[in-house]
């Protein structure tokens, strides 16, 4: 049951399918803008350049997790079961991007997608999406991505090993399999959660296992039963060597699975892994040393002291860095941040999210980071 319903007056427009040639022609009239810029102004869902979706319902799953039902707009290019989607949420006027696994069935009628999010109490975006984003909220959607996907056709035997919110991409795959007619593969799911009331999709998983013959479910509550061990996998799934394996969860779980496979001599190519990185790292203390900067496209890495700008570090390492005023004024030196965080040398403030454009002339390293230059 949706916790909220959309007001009846909420527009349910289907984006019109305008042929590309018409839009290109209209572009001569809207130049230097594109017709898309006007469409997006009328309704953000009509924009193809900046794909967006509207939250149509928010369903609480556990005390700190919710499922968001999202109606994607014109720019949404679809996805494969198991992929994740970059989601942009506007908080205090600024867009923040996070990735979440899609839990819906790709070719479901209506085309709505769902993501299930667990709130990280230290985080900024997930608590907002889980507890506060009302239906009607417009989110930006990046292109679905990831290779942790359900093959088509699926292999005859599959083993899923998941923990915590690592169940989310697998839930999408199970729903996809359950929605198909014809023979389903034989599936074993080993899922760990701290407690029953913190277990995502507990009722749905149990119901599905009872209803379909092809799913064997082992739920493990780690507060009482302890964490999954290398030996448990073999005990719970004796024929694991005949199975293709998907593992998703915290690093500890993935280590257990890898160790098990190495121990059992199972070919690594039969293993698909998706790791959930821990949320934002703790802010470093002021005065902390810099970090190692990798310049992704140039293939160069260099040590960057805390007080030195990324621009200087890049230039002394021979990277062709864009530059301008070198004073933080002109924004001629913007470079996308791929990974890590930076410190504003003027204010000492630490910031940076993947994809954010960084003024390299006034930001320094704080820990290891990767720049797309």
């Amino acid at each position, binding site marked *: 049951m949706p916790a909220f319903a959309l007001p009846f007056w909420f527009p349910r427009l289907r984006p019109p399918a305008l042929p590309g040639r018409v839009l290109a022609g209209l572009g001569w009239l809207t130049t230097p803008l594109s017709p898309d810029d006007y469409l997006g102004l009328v309704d953000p869902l009509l924009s193809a*350049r900046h794909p967006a979706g509207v939250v149509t319902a928010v369903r609480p799953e556990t005390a700190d997790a919710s499922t968001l039902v999202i109606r994607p707009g014109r720019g949404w290019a679809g996805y494969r079961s198991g992929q994740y989607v970059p989601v942009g949420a506007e908080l205090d006027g600024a867009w923040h991007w996070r990735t979440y696994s899609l839990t819906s069935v790709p070719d479901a009628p209506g085309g709505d997608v769902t993501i299930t999010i667990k709130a990280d109490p230290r985080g900024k975006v997930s608590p907002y999406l889980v507890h506060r984003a009302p239906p009607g909220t417009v989110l930006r959607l990046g292109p679905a991505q990831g290779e942790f996907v359900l093959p088509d056709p699926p292999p005859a035997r599959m083993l899923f090993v998941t923990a915590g919110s690592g169940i989310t991409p697998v839930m999408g795959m199970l729903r996809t399999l359950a929605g198909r007619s014809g023979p389903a593969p034989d599936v074993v799911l080993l899922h760990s959660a701290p407690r029953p009331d913190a277990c995502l999709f507990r009722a749905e998983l149990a119901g599905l296992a009872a209803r379909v013959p092809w799913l064997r479910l082992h739920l493990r509550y780690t507060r009482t039963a302890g964490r999954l061990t290398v030996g448990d996998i073999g005990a719970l799934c004796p024929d694991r060597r005949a199975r293709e394996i998907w593992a998703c969860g915290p690093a500890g779980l993935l280590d257990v699975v890898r160790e098990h496979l190495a121990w059992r001599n199972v070919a690594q190519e039969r293993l698909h892994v998706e790791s959930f990185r821990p949320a934002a790292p703790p802010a470093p203390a002021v005065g902390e040393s810099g970090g190692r900067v990798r310049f992704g496209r140039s293939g160069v890495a260099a040590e960057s002291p805390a007080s030195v700008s990324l621009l200087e570090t890049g230039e002394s390492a021979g990277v062709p860095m864009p530059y*301008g005023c070198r*004073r933080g004024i002109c924004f001629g030196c913007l470079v996308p941040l791929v990974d890590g965080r930076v410190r504003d040398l003027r204010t000492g403030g630490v910031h940076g999210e993947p994809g954010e454009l960084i003024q390299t002339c006034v930001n320094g390293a704080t820990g290891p980071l990767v720049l797309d230059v």
Partner: protein
Amino acid sequence: MTATVLPMTLVDRTEELGEELDRLRSEVIAMRGADDARYIRTVIAVQRGLEAGGRLALAVSLMPPAWCAGTAMLTVAKILENMELGHNVLHGQWDWMGDPAIHSTTWEWDFASPADAWKRTHNHLHHTYTNVVGRDRDLGYTILRMSPEQPWRPVHLLQPLYAALLAPVFEWGIALYDLEADSVVAGRKSVRSFLGEIANLGRKAVRQSAKDYVLFPLLAGPSALPCLLGNLTANGLRNIWAHTVIFCGHFPSDVRTFTEDDIDGESRGQWYLRQIQGSANFGGGFLLHVLSGNLGHQIEHHLFPDLPSNRYDEIAPRVRRLCGKYGVPYVTGPLWRQYLSMWGRVVRHALP
């Protein structure tokens, strides 16, 4: 031009002034939020609405009221687009929103000069070397003589004339100036990149001209001619307005110029000081400030070119108080007075 002599105590306190301005900047950055985002989106919506309305009205502009309304709407739309949106977005004032649709790296504007060329000559050269004779290419746009440090040549006798003629075609003047042909002659810029920039400008010029002078008039059918005239008028008025605002920002007679020696080893405090002394404000209400891209707060803009323009009005009294405290002249006045003062300077330096 009056080279204001600063009291010696100020020189010692320049860094203190710089720190106070840094604190002011941090304060505004900490305050930026949903209200600012709503502001810029509202301006965008109003601008695009006016543009669409203006185009529609000009499509039936055989009727005189439609011509007047359409031309007025399109003029205001173009002014908003250049001043409060284009200029300020290209400065990176809204990059903090992380919205790729309102970002200095993705924005293109309804002005002849391509955004990339403009960002280099304006954001980098002009804002870094504000009013440094020989470095700030904005100063006099290389063809005007605006200070006694510039050598006089007989051609300068004509400068009041060509400064006035520049106004209605200002965007094309800027576009040519952004090509920096003199840098190629001086060997500071390669012929190859120069040709690349000419091609960029050419492509943009074709689209810009086609839109205003061919396609919309053709679509207007029987109203083609009035539509064309409306578009010409809107572009011309926008050019005159942009010319006025920009000339009033740096050329009123109390504004200082600097030499390259002045900026040798310049500290942050001294840089701030030069920005204040090299800029002039003009007063007005909310509407005047929005239509001038908040460049009536030229001093605040030059101190903090990357702060959202809607915040300049709020910090202006505090900047002015700081200037009073440190004895730095804060040049401001009504627009008409700054405008006359600017012309006075153009005429005065036309003579040796």
